C-alpha cells in the first residue's frame, strides 16, 4: 500500500489513490468506499426492480402465466430484501460515506479500515442473499423461500435450505450495518472541524446520526430472532413452535421490533438529503433547524416503540392495540413537523426547479400521501380491514419509494456534479423525474382500490374482478422500470464526461463540501477548515 501511494502521490499535495483493483478491494478512502456502496446499490436496485417487473408481469392478468407460485413468492420475498438491504440502505450508506466527512470538515471516516470491512461484509451478504434466491433452482436445492420478507414461522420452518442462506444473510447484514453505524457515530462525534458543534452540523449528518443509533439498537434483536429460527429449523428447539411451548408470534415481535424502526432507517437519510436540497434551491436557510433536528430524534425514539402495529390481527389484547395505535398515530407529529419545515423553507424563497428540487417537491407531495394512508392503517378498526391487503402494499410503496428511494435519487442528482466534476444532463434528469412520478403513481395508486375491494397481498393469482386495476398497475410498473434506463444512462454519461461543474455547483448551495473542488481530490481536509470559515457558513445558513 505505501509503495503504491508513494509512487502515485501526484494528486495535489496529498497522497494519491492507489491504482488497479487494490484501490477498491483494500480501500480505506471514504470517497472510494462511498462509490463502492453506490455501485452495489445501483446493481441491486436494478436486480430488485427487474424482479418487481416479473411480479407485475405475472399479475397483469388473472391466471398463472409466467411464474409458478413458489417462484413468484421467491421473487416477492427477495424483491423486498434486495430493495431494503441491497439498494436503499447501501445507497444511503454510500452517500453518508461520501458526504459526511466533507460536510463536517473531516479528513476521512474515523475508522477507515472498519469502513472497508463493513462494505465487504455487505457484498458477502448480497452474494449470500442471491444464493438463497437461486439455490432452489439447483438440483437438491430444497424448496423456494415462499414466506415474504417477514420470514414468519411456521412457514419459514417448512422452507428448504434457502432459508438458512437467508438467515446467514441477515447475520452478515447485521454485522455490516452495525460496523458502518459505529463508524458514522464515531466520525460525527469525534471528527468534526473545530467550531462545528453538534448543533451546527448539516441536517443530513443529523439524520444519519439518528439512523446509526437506530441500526445499532435494532439489528441485534433481529439477528437473535433469526438465530432462534435457525435453531428451530435444525436443532430441535421450539422458540416459535406452540407444540413445544413456544409462540409463533414471538418471532413477529422480533421481526417488527427491527422492521418498524427499519422503516425510519430507510426514511431518515432521505429526509436529511431533502434538508440539504430544499434550502439550496429555495436560496434561503432551512426553516427550523432545531425543530427539524427534534423531529428526527423524535421519529427515531417513538419509532422504536410502536412495532406491534404490524400485528393488530394476531390477537393482541385491547390494551396493547390501543397503546400501539396511539403511539403510531403520534408519529405523525414529528413527521408532520418535518414536512411543514420543508414547505416553510420553500415559502418566500426564490426557487428554481433543477432535478433534485423537482424530486424534493415530488417527495413532499407523495410522501405526505403515503404518510396519511399511514395514519389510516395505524387506526386499529380500519386496519383490521386494510391489513395484509393491497391497500397496505400501496401505502408502504408510497412511503418507501417517495420517502426514501426518491430521496436517494434527489441526492444522486444533487451530488453527482460534486462527485464526478461533471454536470448531468438536466433535460434527461427531468424526463427521468416525470417518468418516475407517472410510473409510480400509476403503479401504486390503483392498488388502494384493490385492497379495499378485498384483494389480499402476496397472491400469485386473483379473481377476474380485480383485473382492471392490476393491469393499470402493471403498465405503471413498466413505465417506472423503463425510467431507470434513463437514470442509468444519465449516470454513465455524467461519469464519463459533461460540462465542468464549479466548486459550488448550485447557486444556493452552502456548506464545507461546496468549498472543495468538483470532483474533490482523493484526500480532503487533511488540514481542518478554519473555525472562522465553519462559523461563517453556519451564520450564512441561519
Amino acid at each position, binding site marked *: 500500500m505505501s509503495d503504491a501511494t508513494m509512487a502515485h502521490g501526484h494528486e495535489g499535495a496529498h497522497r494519491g489513490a492507489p491504482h488497479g483493483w487494490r484501490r477498491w478491494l483494500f480501500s480505506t478512502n471514504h470517497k472510494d468506499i462511498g462509490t463502492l456502496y453506490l455501485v452495489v446499490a445501483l446493481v441491486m436496485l436494478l436486480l430488485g426492480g427487474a424482479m418487481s417487473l416479473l411480479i407485475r408481469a405475472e399479475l397483469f392478468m388473472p391466471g398463472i402465466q409466467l411464474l409458478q*407460485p413458489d417462484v413468484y*413468492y421467491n421473487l416477492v420475498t427477495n424483491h423486498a430484501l434486495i430493495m431494503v438491504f441491497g439498494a436503499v440502505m447501501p445507497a444511503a450508506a454510500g452517500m453518508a460515506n461520501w458526504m459526511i466527512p466533507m460536510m463536517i470538515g473531516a479528513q476521512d471516516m474515523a475508522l477507515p479500515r472498519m469502513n472497508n470491512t463493513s462494505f465487504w461484509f455487505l457484498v458477502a451478504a448480497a452474494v449470500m442473499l442471491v444464493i438463497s434466491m437461486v439455490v432452489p433452482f439447483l438440483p437438491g436445492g*430444497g424448496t423456494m423461500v*415462499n414466506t415474504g420478507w417477514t420470514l*414468519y414461522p411456521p*412457514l419459514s420452518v*417448512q422452507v428448504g435450505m434457502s432459508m438458512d442462506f437467508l438467515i446467514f444473510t441477515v447475520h452478515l447484514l447485521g454485522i455490516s450495518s452495525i460496523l458502518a453505524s459505529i463508524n458514522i457515530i464515531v466520525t460525527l462525534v469525534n471528527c468534526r472541524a473545530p467550531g462545528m458543534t453538534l448543533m451546527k452540523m448539516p441536517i443530513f449528518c443529523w439524520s444519519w446520526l439518528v439512523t446509526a443509533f437506530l441500526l445499532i439498537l435494532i439489528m441485534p434483536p433481529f439477528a437473535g430472532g433469526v438465530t432462534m429460527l435457525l435453531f428451530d429449523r435444525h436443532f430441535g428447539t421450539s422458540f416459535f413452535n406452540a407444540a413445544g411451548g413456544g409462540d*409463533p*408470534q414471538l418471532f413477529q415481535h422480533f421481526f417488527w421490533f427491527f422492521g418498524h424502526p427499519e422503516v425510519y432507517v430507510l426514511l431518515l437519510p432521505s429526509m436529511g438529503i431533502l434538508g440539504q436540497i430544499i434550502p439550496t434551491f*429555495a*436560496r434561503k436557510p*432551512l*426553516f*427550523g433547524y432545531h425543530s427539524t433536528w427534534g423531529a428526527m430524534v423524535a421519529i427515531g425514539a417513538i419509532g422504536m416503540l410502536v412495532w406491534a402495529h404490524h400485528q393488530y*390481527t*394476531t*390477537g393482541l389484547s385491547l390494551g396493547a392495540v*390501543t397503546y400501539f395505535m*396511539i403511539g403510531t398515530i*403520534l408519529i*405523525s407529529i414529528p413527521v408532520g*413537523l418535518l414536512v*411543514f419545515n420543508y*414547505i*416553510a423553507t420553500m*415559502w*418566500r424563497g*426564490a426557487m428554481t*426547479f433543477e432535478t433534485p428540487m423537482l424530486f424534493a417537491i415530488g417527495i413532499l*407531495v*407523495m410522501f*405526505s400521501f403515503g404518510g396519511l394512508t399511514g*395514519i*389510516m392503517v395505524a*387506526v*386499529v*378498526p*380500519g386496519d*383490521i*380491514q386494510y*391489513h395484509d*391487503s393491497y391497500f397496505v402494499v400501496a401505502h408502504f410503496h408510497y412511503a418507501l419509494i417517495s420517502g426514501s428511494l426518491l430521496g436517494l435519487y434527489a441526492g444522486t442528482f444533487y451530488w453527482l456534479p460534486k462527485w464526478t466534476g461533471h454536470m448531468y444532463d438536466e433535460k434527461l434528469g427531468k424526463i427521468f423525474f*416525470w417518468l418516475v*412520478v407517472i410510473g409510480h*403513481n400509476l403503479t401504486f*395508486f*390503483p392498488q388502494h*382500490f384493490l385492497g*379495499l*375491494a*378485498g384483494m*389480499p397481498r*402476496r397472491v400469485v*393469482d*386473483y*379473481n*377476474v*374482478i380485480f383485473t*382492471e*386495476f392490476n393491469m393499470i398497475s402493471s403498465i405503471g410498473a413498466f413505465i417506472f422500470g423503463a425510467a431507470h434506463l434513463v437514470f442509468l444512462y444519465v449516470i454513465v454519461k455524467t461519469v464519463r464526461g459533461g460540462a465542468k461543474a464549479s466548486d459550488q455547483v448550485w447557486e444556493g448551495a452552502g456548506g464545507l463540501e461546496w468549498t472543495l473542488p468538483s470532483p474533490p481530490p482523493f484526500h480532503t481536509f487533511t488540514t481542518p477548515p478554519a473555525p472562522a470559515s465553519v462559523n461563517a457558513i453556519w451564520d450564512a445558513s441561519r
Partner: protein
Amino acid sequence: MRGWRQPKKLAQFLAIMVLLGLAGLTRAEYGINFPEPATPGARDIYDIHMRTMTIAAVLLVIVIGFISYSVYAHRKSRGAIPDQNFHKGWFGRWSWVLVPALVLGVDLTISGAAERVLESLWLVPKDKDMMEVKVTGHQWWWEYEYLDQGVRLESRYTPEDKAGDQYLRDVDQRLVLPTLTKIRFLHTSADVNHSFWVPELGFKKDAIAGYITETWAVIDKEGVYRGQCAHLCGTWHARMPIVVEAISPEKFNAWVAEQKTKVAAAQAESASGKVWSKEELMEKGRNAYNKNCAACHQLDGRGLAPAFPPLIAGAPYSAPANLSKPLEERGFLKDGKIVLGPVAKHIDIIVNGIPDTSMQAWKQLTNLEIAAIVTYERNAFNNNTGEVVQMADVEKVRGAKATAAAR
C-alpha cells in the same frame, strides 16, 4: 405554459381523475371502496375508515395547496427575492409548538373516534348462548366446526372450470351462518399462519397454530359474502377462498338438520358391513375424490409437483427428499416414477396422512368413503389395476393403528 409547469399537483390530480374515471367503468359489483358492510361492527369500521380518509384527504389538499402556491409564487423566474429572515420571525420561533399542537388535535380526533368503537369490536361478549364456530386454517383449505350444532365442514376452492368468474372467490362448501345471531368465531391453524378475512364481516383475524384467537359478529343482512385467506401461507395461498352464506335462523336450522341427516346416513351406510361392487365403489369414489382430493391431486390425478404428487402409475415425480422419501418408504415411488404401492399403505396414507407434508390425515372420512377413494385411485387415471377395496380393509388399517396406539 407556466401553469403547466407547476410540478406534481397537475400530475397527481390527473392521475386521480383518470383512475377514478376508470374505476367507474369497471363492473358494478366491484367498487373502489369497501363492499357494503353486513354487520354492525363492519359498519362502525366503515364509518371510521371514511372519517379517517376524509381527514387525510383534507390534510393532503392543504399540503398540496401550500406547495402549489409556493411553487407558483416563490420562483426565481418570477423575480422572487428570498426572504432570508422568514424563519426568524414569530412564526419561525413558535411553529415548532403550533404545528405539533395542530397535528396532535387531528391525531386525537382520529384516535378518539377509533377508540370508541374499538372496545366493542375487540372484546368478544361472554354470553353463554352465543353460537360458536371454530375456524381452522389448513394448507390450503378451511375447516369449519359448528361447536353447538355438531356439524363440521371442509371448504376448498372450486377449480377454474367449475367456478367460472368466481374462481378464487368460490368454494365447494360455504360457511353457512344464521343472521341476527351473535356468533363467536374461534380461529386457529393446523399448520402455518393463515388469516380469515371477509370484508363484509368487517374483520380479519390470524389463525395461529397452537393458539386460539377470537372475534365476533352479528350478521344482519342475508347474502353471500366472499373473502380470501389474507396471510401468506405458502404455495397455494391464493387458493383459500372463504364464502359465507348468511341465511335466516329458520333456514339455518333446517340446513343444520339436513347436514346431520347426511352425516348419519353416511355413517349408517359405512357401518352396515355391506360388500360393495366395483362399479358402486368407483361411482362413490369419483365423487369423494373430486370433493376431497382433487383440489390438490387434481381432477385428472396429475397432481401439482412438488407439493402434490401425481397418482398416475408411471408418472415422473421429483421432489426434495422430505417429500419424496416418505413415498419411497411406503412403496409409491421408484426411480423417480410413481408406482402403485401396497393397498394397506395406500389406505394408511389416507387415514393417517404423511407427517410434515401437505398430506393431512383424513380420519374424518368414513370407511366407505376411503374404500371408495382407494378403489377409484387404483382404477381411474388409466391405473386399471382391477383391485377393489372394501370397508373391512380400511377398518383393518384403522384398527391396527388404534391397537398400536393403545399399546
